[in-house]
Each structure stands twice: as C-alpha cells, then as structure tokens.
C-alpha cells in the first residue's frame, strides 16, 4: 500500500500516441520523496546532456509533490521540470492552484511527456481514461480561453487545465504554462510544451488519496491551521509590511509598496527611485488595485489569500499575485499602476513570464535609445511608452520582426543583435533575467544565493531570515524568542547572528562571517528543496519569516502522510541528495564556476577577492571541489555513486583510485 503518493506515473509519447500507466519504485520515494526530487532522477536517467531542449527526446514532467492532494494545508504545487531553452540547464518551475491534487485524485503522481505530436493536441486525463485529443481548433487561443473551451467541450467544469498561449506555441524562451490560479513562468517551460505541440493538459480525478496515520496527520494539520491563523492575525513587527505576513508577499491585499518601489530598480533594472513612494502615490495605486481586484483567492486547501482576480473593463480577466503586480509598471517607468495591471492581462493570456518579459521590453527600448536598435528595426512602433510596451509584447509572442530576436530573452538577443548590445545584458545570471534589484554593498548571504541558486531565481532560494537588521536590541531579542525554526544545533549561532546584527562592526560584506553565511544559505536552500519535493507552497514554508512548516514538524508530517520513517537528519540528507542531483545534471550540461556570479553592477561596491573567498568556502562547505563539482566523497555519502561513475566516465572527475 502506498500512502501520500499513488505509486503510478502516466507516460505519454506524443510521437507515437502511446499512453502507459507505469508503477513507480517505492525506493525512489525513500531516496527523493517526490516532486522535484523524483523529477530530477527521471531527467538524470533519461535525458542525457546531448539532448537539446526542443528535441522530441527531451521530457516535460508535470509532477505533484509527495504530499499533494493529502489534507496537508498548502500541499498543492505542480512541479514542472524539463531542460530550459534559455539556460540550457535543468528547469523547474512550480505553480500553485488545483492541478496537482486533481492529478493525484485521478490516480497519478506525474505525467511524463515525451516525443512531439505532428499536429496540435491536448491531453485529457479522466481517471483511468486518458486521451490525446485534437487541438487544432485551439491554436492561437489564449491560455485562459483554451482552458475554458476545453472544459466546455469536455462538459467537465471541474477539470483542471494547464495550458499555453501564443508565446508557448511560438517557443518564446520565457513562455509560461498557465492554470487558473497561477503560472509556471520561469525558464521557458511553455516553449518546451509548445515544441511538443501540446496545447494543454486537462485532468479530472475522483479517486481517494490515502494517508498512513490518519488521526495523527489530521491533528498535525489542525496545528498548522492554528498557527496560520495566528500569523494571519499577527503580522511580524519590525519588518516592512510586505515581509510581515505569510504566503507569497501579500501584494494583492496590501497597498503599502514602499519597500518594493524604493529598493528595487526601475526601467531595465537601472534606476532606484528612493523618493518615489508617498501618500499620493499610495492612494492612487490603492484605488487602481481596488477597482481592478474582484476577490482575493487561494490555492487548493490553503487559507492564505495570495492571489487576486483582476478584471479591468475592456481587458480580459486574469489571476495575479505577488511582485508581478509591479514588474511592468516599474520596467516601463510609468507612475500609474493601472498600466501594469492592464498589460499583465494581455501578457498572461499570451502566456509569458511576468518577471522576464518586462525586462526584455525595457532592454529593447534601452537599445533603441542607445541607437543599437534603429527605427528600421522597430518600424511602426508607437511613440508613447505604454504603446511601445504593448507593441513589443505583441511582436515577441508572435516572433514577428524584432520580436523574433527578443523572444529568446536578453542574453541571447543581446548576442544576436551585437553592435555592443551585450553590454546592456546586465541583469542576467546563467542567461536568465533576475529580479531587478541593485543595491549598495555586497551582501554575503545574497552573493552566495544569487551565485549558486540553481533554480536561478532568488525567490526560490531565499527565505526564513530578515533582509535587514532590526533597529533596536529589544526588537532583536523579541524576534529570537519564538524563532523555533532553526535547525537543531544551530540555534545559538543563528540567534547570535540576529542579536548582533545592527551593532557597530556588523556591516556587509564582512558580516555575517563566512561560516555563518554558508550555514544560513544552506538552510534557506534546503528548505526550498524540501518543499519542492513535497509539493508544499514556499509561501507557507521556505519563503517567509517564521513560517508554519519547518525542519522540526515536516519529518512528522511526512511520516504521518506518506508512512516513511523520517527525522530531521534524514530529511536534510534527502534534500541535499536532490540538490546535488540537480547540480549534477547541470554540470553535465556545462555549468561552470564562471557562470556562478551576479552581474558586475549588482552592488555598487564590490569586493572581488572577498567574494571569491566566499564562493570557495561555500563550495567546500557544500562538499564541492574548487570548480563547484560535488566531490566523490559527497556523492558517495548521498548515495549518488551512479553520478560519480558518470562523472568519471565523462572525465569530469578523475578516477584517481583514492578511497571515497
């Protein structure tokens, strides 16, 4: 008997039309849990580095997490994994909503897509009945229209749908996969889906999801809900409002956007506008959001209302959350929030990433101002900034004219355009557009996270700790009092970090010390890897400060739900195994130490030697060699001898005969 998971994957070959229900090995669950962990294992086993992103041999995996569809609050994420057309590395984007639980109820943990369909199709999973259906009539339809039409033609309003829009169809490198509650946006998974001519996957399930220890699990869930209620009622004191809550930053509910608008960079990650936020702007923006927002909503089995239904007259409705509220407005340097809300409606229907897209648009206009892109390149473009953003977006999703170049993202477009355009590629890491934030002095913790995060997005590695020191000693003491989240054995060290931070001599980049910085980064990262294998939303776990889930209660919850014997050490080891496996996939695909660095202007004041030392120490701490490659000892300790053998076979590690 399997608990938590169903024990079955659905294997779909779009080239041959073959569909199989395949039982999975419980051993893989013990080693990797599920979600991202088992996705990485499948990609390691079946997608060698010779396979290119758009090759039919590349896999596109839609996975629930191990706890998805159980009563565990917030265990609803779909973890979509493949090889990114943009970074050429492993891509795993995640999305909340209802899709992954529905897949579990249909009797599957994952859908693994391989091959390429000759014509546009969609997949319809209705419990044991699975069909590849014609989607030629859906070609060109928006993400949301596609979902609506599929539900209507199937006469199944309760089906959950993942779909791509024009951008995915046209293989835009930052195309998203959308569902009715969110987007799997990052790293171009929509383009992979488009390359397979798969327009959508609809799923409906009416089976049971079993758990191992029912009474214990429900009590644990009740405890989690009580804590969520407590945190909803009591925002954390001493931090900006946007960081004081749980869930994803509550930007659909809160109107105080001072923190984002003055700390983050506007335009193409260029300008700080420190004096931007005032009462007048707050009123204007609050009015704009209130007019547009119809309701605050949640994902499956989660009380936190992170998302908003946004509907402006003359624009199609869509669902929005978090910082994408601001990305278009800030990139265009427009002072009116309504502009951002309007263009996001179109963008989400096209199915593009709300973080990358605005930066690509701003990048293009920077090149135009610099004379690198000419009137000829942009022939027909309107004069006003709002018109320009919309005009460029329309061309990118259709890959028309200059849009065809920009559709590959800043890194590739800069190289294709040439004429000095490369110099304007100043906010990508590992070829991927980063959150636009350019601050004063190297922050050692963030330096390591930006450099080594292999989801290549800061939001997918950060969390747990405040981003600035508390101003008073009292506030610090108050903060650490109920900071129960710290891993065993590190309580003293991490509390000391908070208590001293803000005293004289605790300035960046030398505070915290390298060893503490390493441990803090490791902790933050490990918590994300745990969530992504369980399918628990980072908004309740690895992302906010003092979240409901932590390293001390997750082992119990896993054992109650899935019946695995689990403790803190074991869980940490599994997450490290998954993390190193992702790295191993990327190393085979050419990831190098040189790729692991934030852009030169990421901070105004840099410390090249100290940063090099930080990275070196962090590699050592992680059990990686000076090139950032996991050592034989590390791989052996994590049960990844097969990775070691492959590294030796490919000459990445030397078979020196030393004992492991």
């Amino acid at each position: 008997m399997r608990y938590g998971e169903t024990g079955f994957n659905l294997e779909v070959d779009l080239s041959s039309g073959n569909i199989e229900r395949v039982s999975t090995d419980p051993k893989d669950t013990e080693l990797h849990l599920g979600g991202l962990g088992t996705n990485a294992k499948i990609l390691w086993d079946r997608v060698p580095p010779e396979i290119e992103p758009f090759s039919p041999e590349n896999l596109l995996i839609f996975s629930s997490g191990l706890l998805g569809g159980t009563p565990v609050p917030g265990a609803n994420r779909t973890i979509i994994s493949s090889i990114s057309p943009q970074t050429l590395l492993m891509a795993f984007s995640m999305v909340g909503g209802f899709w992954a639980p529905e897949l579990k109820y249909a009797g599957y943990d994952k859908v693994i897509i391989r091959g390429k369909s000759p014509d546009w199709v969609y997949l319809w999973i209705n419990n044991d009945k699975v069909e590849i259906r014609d989607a030629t009539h859906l070609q060109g339809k928006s993400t949301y229209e596609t979902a609506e039409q599929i539900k209507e033609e199937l006469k199944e309003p309760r089906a959950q749908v993942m779909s791509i829009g024009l951008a995915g169809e046209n293989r835009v490198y930052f195309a998203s996969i959308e569902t009715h509650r969110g987007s799997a946006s990052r790293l171009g998974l929509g383009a992979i889906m488009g390359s397979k001519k798969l327009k959508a996957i609809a799923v409906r399930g009416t089976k049971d999801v079993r758990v191992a220890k029912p009474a214990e699990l429900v009590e644990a869930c009740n405890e989690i809900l009580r804590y969520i209620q407590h945190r909803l009622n009591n925002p954390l004191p001493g931090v900006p409002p946007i960081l004081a809550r749980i869930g994803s930053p509550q930007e659909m509910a809160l109107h105080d956007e001072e923190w984002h608008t003055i700390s983050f960079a506007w335009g193409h990650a260029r300008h700080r506008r420190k004096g931007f936020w005032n009462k007048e702007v707050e009123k204007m923006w609050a009015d704009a959001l209130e007019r547009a927002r119809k309701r605050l909503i949640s994902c499956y089995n989660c009380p936190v209302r992170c998302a908003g239904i946004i509907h402006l007259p003359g624009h199609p409705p869509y669902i929005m959350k978090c910082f994408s509220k601001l990305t278009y407005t800030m990139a265009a340097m427009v002072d009116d929030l309504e502009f951002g809300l309007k263009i996001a409606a179109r963008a989400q229907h096209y199915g593009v990433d709300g973080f990358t897209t605005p930066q690509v648009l701003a990048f293009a206009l920077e090149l135009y101002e610099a004379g690198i892109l000419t009137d000829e390149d942009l022939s027909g473009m309107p004069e006003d900034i709002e018109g320009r953003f919309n005009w460029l977006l329309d061309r990118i999703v259709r890959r028309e004219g200059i849009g065809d170049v920009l559709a590959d993202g800043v890194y590739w477009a800069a190289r294709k355009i040439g004429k000095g355009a490369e110099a304007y590629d100043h906010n990508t890491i590992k070829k991927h557009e980063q959150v636009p934030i350019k601050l004063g002095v190297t922050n050692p913790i963030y330096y390591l996270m930006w450099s080594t995060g292999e989801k290549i997005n800061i939001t997918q590695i950060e969390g747990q700790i405040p981003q600035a020191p508390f101003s008073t000693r009292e506030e610090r003491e108050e903060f650490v009092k109920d900071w129960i989240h710290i891993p065993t054995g590190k309580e003293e060290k991490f509390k000391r970090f908070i208590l001293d931070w803000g005293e004289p001599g605790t300035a960046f980049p030398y505070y915290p010390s390298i060893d503490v910085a390493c441990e803090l980064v490791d902790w933050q990262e490990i918590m994300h890897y745990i969530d992504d294998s369980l399918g628990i939303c980072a908004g309740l776990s690895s992302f906010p400060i003092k979240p409901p889930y932590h390293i001390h209660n997750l082992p119990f919850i896993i054992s109650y739900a899935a019946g695995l014997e689990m403790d803190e050490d074991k869980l940490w080891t599994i997450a490290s195994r998954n993390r190193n496996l992702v790295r191993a996939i990327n190393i085979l695909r050419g990831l190098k130490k040189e790729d692991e660095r934030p852009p030169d202007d990421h901070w105004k004041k840099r410390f090249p030697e100290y940063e090099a030392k930080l990275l070196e120490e962090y590699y050592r701490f992680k059990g990686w060699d000076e090139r950032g490659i996991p050592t034989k000892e590390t791989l052996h300790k994590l049960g990844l001898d097969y990775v070691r053998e492959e590294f030796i076979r490919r000459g990445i590690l030397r078979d020196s005969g030393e004992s492991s």
Partner: protein
Amino acid sequence: MSEKNEKKKRKVKVIKIDVDKCNGCRACEVICSAFHAQPKYGSNNPSRSRIQVHFDPLKNIYLPVYASEYTPAECAGRNKYIMDGKEYIECAFCGASCPSRDLFKEPDSKLPLKCDMCEEEPPLSEPMCVQWCLNDALVYEEREEEVEEEEELKELETGLESLIDKYGRQKVIDTMARMVQKE
C-alpha cells in the same frame, strides 16, 4: 392534534454561508471527505465531499453548496439567475443528489451523499468544514426552533431508496436475499 404532529423544541444546526468571503480553497471538501472516509481521515477525495464549492474564477463565482436530499426525478426546468451581473444556473444552488448530474454521489457506487452536519459522539464543536474554513465563509450557528417532529430518513435508507429507484424494489430484495444466503 395527533401526537405525531406535536410541536417540539429542537436545536437547529445552521451553517451561514458568506459567498463574498469564500476564497475558493476547497479545504471544506478536503476535510469533509476525509472525515467521512473509512477509516476516518484515512483518505480524502473531494468528489465524495458533502459540500462542493461551485466556482468559476474568471467570472468571480464562488458558491459553496451542501448536499441535501436525494431525489429520483430531475427538475422540469433549469432556470437561470443573474445576480450582480453574474449568471448562475439554478442547479448551482441546489444540494440535491439528482439524476441530472454527478454531484453529491459517491463516485464509484453513485449512491447519494448528504450532509450530516458531522454527526458524531461526542458531538463536534462545529462541523469539520466550518472548522477548516479560516476565512469565515462558513460560520456555524445553533438556534432553537419549534418544529413538527418527523422521522428523518437515515443514510442507509436514502441509499436503499436510490437503489430501488434505479433497479426496482424486487431486484434489490432479491440481491439482498442472495447476499444474505452467501454469508
């Protein structure tokens, strides 16, 4: 007045549904189906839930509905309601387990489901769906009411009644008899 129709004081259990507060998370469906599972909480399956959230995000429609009576016949019409500019089909508000749809039926046996306000000994402080609704879209109230006493159909009887409707009385009796003999 016969004794059967005598008015008695009875505690009436009420769940107040504030659709404006519904965040569409369907935690009510999760915990309802888990509570009524065998063994209790041993599994969950929203399609077995006795509360269903009828929802359509793009139209901003969120409507939790409880399973009520089983009925063997469909309604004659399917009226539509328009409220605040949003169109609802009449069935969206209806809790009946009826032949026109799959709602409020066990997915395997198609036997009807009905909300029991989480009948339990000792009694729950409030039904599980209310306990798991942190946004207060579902709020439990109790009030005293004078009612005419009437025997309510128990779950088993409702189930049998639906089987009789489907297969005929004789077939159900024959099947029962055959099963008893096998034991």
